[in-house]
């Protein structure tokens, strides 16, 4: 970056590398718009199918429905023995508790790793990183046996309690990175004033870490809302189903083959995720860019 005063007295800077000709940039935009449309087409088609009259769904490859009616939503909502209101509520409870568990438990551990000195800290930190590498399939079966013995199968406990024990090590790592960027003078000044580690964590660390806490909260919510494997294993009674399990049941009961209702409920299940995407897009994208997340 050249200083503003410098550039006024020196020659104008050379054109930035990679500047394209007018024709080139028109072509690029045409290509990108076409690609964007291709990417979104399946999603738009699904939303469109959810408000179409049933007989029009398969007859049409266009995105514009001839008439809009929300009958499919009503049919889908009550399409199974248990309503999608119940499924959504179950998903919301599990995702909400997961967010709280992850933010609380992971920030506690991250504070210890980032700021406190105690015997074995580096060893435990290495162990924590190690748990991020291991596929969860290795712990899956004994965990299932454990929760079965505790009588927790068919409740939300197996899906929620591990989060309160900071089982998502990835978020610990994310927070440690952020905490290390907070100036130590703040802790030291607080110590001078006689604050202990708890108050420093509560009064300094957490308030200054809202961006990383928000990122962890949003990703926790989205991943839990979308999770299929966990609920599939632990929830057997339809009253406890999440929205993802509800959708799968809807597909399997395709004797009804209510495609309109299925697409309506599918669209509905994407709404919360889309909402987060719309309002916190920058946070999500920065989260991925800085940590190299997989999804």
């Amino acid at each position, binding site marked *: 970056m050249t200083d503003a005063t410098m550039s006024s007295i020196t020659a104008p800077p050379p054109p930035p590398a990679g500047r394209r000709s007018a024709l080139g940039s028109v072509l690029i935009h045409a290509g990108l718009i076409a690609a964007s449309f291709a990417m979104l087409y399946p999603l738009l088609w699904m939303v469109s199918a959810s408000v179409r009259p049933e007989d029009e769904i398969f007859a049409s490859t266009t995105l514009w429905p001839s008439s809009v009616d929300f009958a499919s939503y009503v049919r889908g909502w009550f399409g199974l023995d248990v309503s999608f209101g119940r499924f959504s509520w179950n998903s919301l409870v599990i995702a909400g508790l997961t967010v709280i568990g992850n933010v609380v438990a992971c920030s506690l551990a991250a504070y210890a790793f980032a700021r406190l000195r105690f*015997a074995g800290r580096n060893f435990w930190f290495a162990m924590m990183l190690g748990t991020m590498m291991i596929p969860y399939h290795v712990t899956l079966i004994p965990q299932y046996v454990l929760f079965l013995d505790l009588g927790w199968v068919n409740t939300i406990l197996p899906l929620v309690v591990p989060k309160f024990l900071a089982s998502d090590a990835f978020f610990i790592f994310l927070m440690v990175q952020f905490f290390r960027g907070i100036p130590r003078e703040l802790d030291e000044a607080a110590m001078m004033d006689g604050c202990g580690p708890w108050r420093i964590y509560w009064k300094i660390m957490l308030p200054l870490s809202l961006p990383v806490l928000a990122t962890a909260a949003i990703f926790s919510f989205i991943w839990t809302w979308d999770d299929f494997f966990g609920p599939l294993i632990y929830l057997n009674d339809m009253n406890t189903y999440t929205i993802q399990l509800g959708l799968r049941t809807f597909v399997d009961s395709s004797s009804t083959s209510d495609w309109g209702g299925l697409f309506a409920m599918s669209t509905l299940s994407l709404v919360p995720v889309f909402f987060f995407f719309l309002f916190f897009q920058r946070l999500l994208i920065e989260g991925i860019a800085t940590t190299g997340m997989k999804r």
Partner: protein
Amino acid sequence: MAAVQDSAVAIGAGARRRPAAQGRLAALWTNHGAGYMFLLPWLVGFFGLTLGPAVASLYLSFTSFDLIRSPEWVGAANYVRIATADPKFAASLKVTFLYVVLSVPFKLAFALFVAILLDRGVKGLTVYRAIFYLPSLLGGSVAIAVLWRQLFAGDGLINSLLAQFGIEGPSWISHPDYSIWTLVVLSVWQFGSPMIIFLAGLRQIPTDMYEAASLDGASKFRQFYKITLPLLTPVIFFNAVVQTIEAFKAFTPAFIISGGTGGPINSTLFYTLYLYQEAFGNFRMGYASALAWILVLIIGLFTAFSFLTSRYWVHYDD
């Protein structure tokens, strides 16, 4: 997230520190009790939900266990059967490798291509980036798998589109030769995350390198080949390893599209789907534990191999 840096060292803080505070500082810095108090939830989880179960599953993999009777020691019998007499294991391994080999390179190529298009000051970058990222964000859900199942059905949207060009498409999802391709397309459609990571990597390349190369008369293509690609190799390597491991663990789309069967004729039987069937369909928990450990072994070997070969093509500038 902008504040995420490597540990920012407080400069000069030490010099101004008053002696009175030394005692209390030292107390905090080596406060074992406080450290372990903060770490307690994680430690309980680590022993109770990770280390304990991992050891237990290693033990279970040498037993026959159906959840009802207590585990019965069978030695290496599970592993022997997997290696020699389990056609479904061989089939699932083949499907999974095929999926990895087909989906990861295409996904990375798309991600890199689009990232390069977007990198050099395209107007509306944030809009395009958001649109391309959306499928990645939604992609893990059942809704998208349901949609895919319809798109590639015999009377689905893809065939309706083809019909307009007079092409009669097969029933993609119920044809053993094509079913895996529907899953590959679904995976490639979600190239958003690696694209964002590539974009972040491209930002790191100093523009004056390109300027110097242009002045020397290097063509755009040559610049890409000689500057962009070598400098991006660490990011390419990272994305390749992460996406490959993810592809090995893929589950939901195959489960939904095949109705949990992995069919037709095991053509979508991902490794994790087979593991699920053995554990929660047939309640062969010991056998499934052995399958889980073999998955760890495969992923471990792949990762080790990647890191060993990376020195020949990944350029870290030091």
